[in-house]
């Protein structure tokens, strides 16, 4: 059964987009002369381009679709993933951490770990990160194949093959620059494709007041206070009083501190975009520039979800409603695609679908460019073939692109067969990621931190995450992939999200404490080896001569003030 009927004009729009994507790759191919050109865009990207790419690299289709689904499930509280779970960390990485990432001239996050700590810490991070990117890219491919099959009746093999070939072609030709340019293009396409959707949806639901009134009914049907779907903080006093099943401390510490900082400050997928910027000042402004559109995205992706659930509970004039799955629960994941199909006529529908495809493809491309860099610099050059010519590593980068995409395709097919194995692998990677921010925080701001300390801390943090997950369970789940697999359930969380937040808090704290203890017991590196790598031994970047909007400090204040206001408006 296909949900959406495309017309000739829609195919023309889609084809036009593909032509431009490939054209960008072809136009850039002559500029890829060295490995730095291919992996780091020759460090020549202007701040605003790097900023939009920083935002878009994270804006894969799963993010777009997932956030709309969460908007339908949890209401405006989903904005915590933006206004507390992203912006503060983005400000932090720009203002405080970029001087070390960019200033040390490390070519990747694992390479920074090598410069700051030692080989084993780099190896651990490089290998887990490379594995994670391939899996994410494959799962993105799988999700796209599945979605296009349901919506348009396209063959799964066809969808996977076409997207793989296009992404391969433009990265192979134009390297990171190609990926970044396409991410910027995707950003504008998402805005152009979704803004009219929000407008039409809001009109259908009777504006913000109509939406609040309908969602009050939805909330009461689920046994919550009337404002539970439209007020982001007021119902966070206890997990039982909001649909997310979390309380404010778990949100602030687990999501706002550990998970968000862990992702935005250490994930090479996003940091790579800032490392490609054309100057230290541009690198520091990259996450800050990204923060402005980021704080507005809830209106583009969460609001449609809220509109969809409001119209499903109480029908509007146009009759839009979310379909139910076989087990009777609502199919939240189809929120955005179905709204596109419902409200958009031929023409706009093509644009909306193009935006969705663009975000799937740049989600894959972001992972593949991070993978080829870490593979080539941190695994191949570090352990397999040292001291070869730059041309050799450029060649390896292109081969790694082919290899990374082949592995993604393999992952996509593996997911169709063994969904559980993929879920398990993702869980393992989540354990590895949770403690990372503690390592970076100590590494950058406490010069006494040693390589042994960092490595032991990381490994124990990862183990702590696994143990915590293995001993706890979200309410209503059975023992297995959801937790409790260590034999006994010592704590039951009100929701899966609460369990995730607390797993992260445990992992971070363990890593933090163990790193400090082991560092104090081992010999630190001499100060001259750490110059440019830790806070107390690095010159502050100077930016006094610049106008305020080009200086990270004032920009950060503006970003934080605006985020605070948004939190207060929807409090």
């Amino acid at each position, binding site marked *: 059964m296909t949900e959406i009927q495309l017309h000739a004009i829609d195919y023309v729009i889609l084809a*036009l987009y593909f032509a431009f994507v490939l054209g960008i790759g072809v136009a850039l191919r002559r500029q890829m002369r060295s490995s730095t050109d291919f992996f780091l865009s020759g460090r*020549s990207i*202007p701040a605003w381009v790097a900023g939009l790419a920083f935002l878009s690299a994270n804006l894969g289709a799963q993010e777009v679709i997932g956030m709309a689904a969460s908007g339908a499930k949890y209401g405006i509280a989903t904005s915590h993933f933006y206004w507390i779970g992203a912006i503060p960390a983005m400000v932090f990485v720009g203002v405080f951490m970029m001087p070390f990432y960019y200033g040390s001239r490390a070519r990747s996050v694992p390479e920074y770990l090598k410069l700051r700590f030692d080989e084993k810490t780099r190896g651990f991070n490089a290998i887990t990160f490379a594995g994670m990117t391939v899996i994410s890219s494959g799962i993105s491919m799988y999700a796209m194949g599945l979605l296009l099959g349901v919506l348009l009746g396209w063959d799964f093999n066809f969808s996977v093959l076409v997207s793989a070939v296009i992404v391969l072609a433009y990265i192979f030709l134009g390297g990171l620059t190609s990926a970044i340019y396409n991410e910027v293009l995707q950003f504008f396409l998402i805005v152009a494709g979704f803004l009219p959707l929000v407008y039409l949806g809001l009109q259908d639901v009777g504006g913000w007041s109509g939406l609040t009134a309908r969602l009050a009914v939805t909330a009461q049907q689920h046994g919550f206070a009337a404002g539970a779907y439209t007020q982001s903080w007021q119902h966070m006093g206890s997990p039982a009083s909001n649909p997310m099943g979390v309380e404010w401390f778990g949100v602030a510490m687990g999501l706002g501190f550990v998970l968000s900082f862990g992702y935005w400050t250490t994930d090479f997928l996003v940091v790579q975009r800032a490392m490609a910027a054309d100057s230290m000042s541009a690198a520091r402004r990259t996450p800050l520039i990204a923060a402005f559109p980021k704080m507005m995205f809830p209106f583009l992706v969460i609001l449609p979800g809220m509109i969809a659930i409001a119209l499903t509970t109480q029908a509007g004039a*146009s009759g839009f409603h979310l379909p139910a799955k076989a087990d009777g629960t609502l199919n939240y994941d189809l929120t955005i695609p179905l709204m596109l199909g419902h409200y958009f006529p031929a023409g706009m529908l093509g644009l909306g679908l193009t935006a969705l495809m663009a975000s799937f493809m740049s989600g894959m491309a972001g992972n593949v460019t991070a993978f080829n860099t870490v593979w080539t610099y941190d695994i191949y050059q570090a352990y397999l073939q040292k001291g070869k010519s730059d041309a050799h590593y450029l060649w390896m980068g292109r081969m790694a692109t082919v290899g990374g995409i082949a592995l993604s395709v393999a992952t996509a097919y593996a997911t169709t067969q063994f969904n559980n194995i993929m879920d398990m692998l993702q869980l393992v990677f989540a354990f590895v990621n949770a403690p990372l921010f503690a390592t970076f925080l100590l590494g950058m701001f406490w010069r006494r931190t040693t390589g042994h300390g960092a490595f032991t801390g990381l490994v124990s943090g990862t183990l702590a995450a696994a143990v915590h997950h293995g001993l706890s369970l979200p309410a209503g789940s059975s023992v297995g992939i959801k937790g409790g697999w260590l034999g006994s359930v010592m704590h039951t969380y009100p929701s899966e999200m609460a369990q995730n937040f607390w797993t992260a808090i445990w992992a971070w704290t363990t890593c933090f404490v163990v790193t400090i203890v082991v560092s104090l017991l081992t010999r630190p590196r001499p100060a001259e080896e750490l110059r440019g790598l830790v806070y107390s031994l690095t010159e502050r970047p100077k930016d006094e001569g610049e106008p305020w909007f080009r200086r990270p400090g004032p920009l950060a204040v503006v970003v934080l003030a605006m985020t605070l206001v948004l939190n207060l408006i929807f409090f």
Partner: protein
Amino acid sequence: MNLDIRLPIGGLFTLLGLLLTGYGLMSDASVYRRSLGHNVNLSWGLVVLAFGLLFLWMGRKGTSGARPAETEPAGRETEAREHRLGLEHD
């Protein structure tokens, strides 16, 4: 890098804008029942077109295209630092 990203973005959006606007002018009003009576192809097509033309114009002026790091003082500084520390890879 000498391809200014604003040119391809401007080009694509201009073409998309023309397509949508043209389709909006020609298509039958009944098509727009689903979009609550709004001819979104026409109205949004014009917005997309205007954005595309703006980007083409800014890209043609070519003020802040991608430049090598050495052309900015801050970039020269880091390049020099990198050179001093022997961190260049070639």
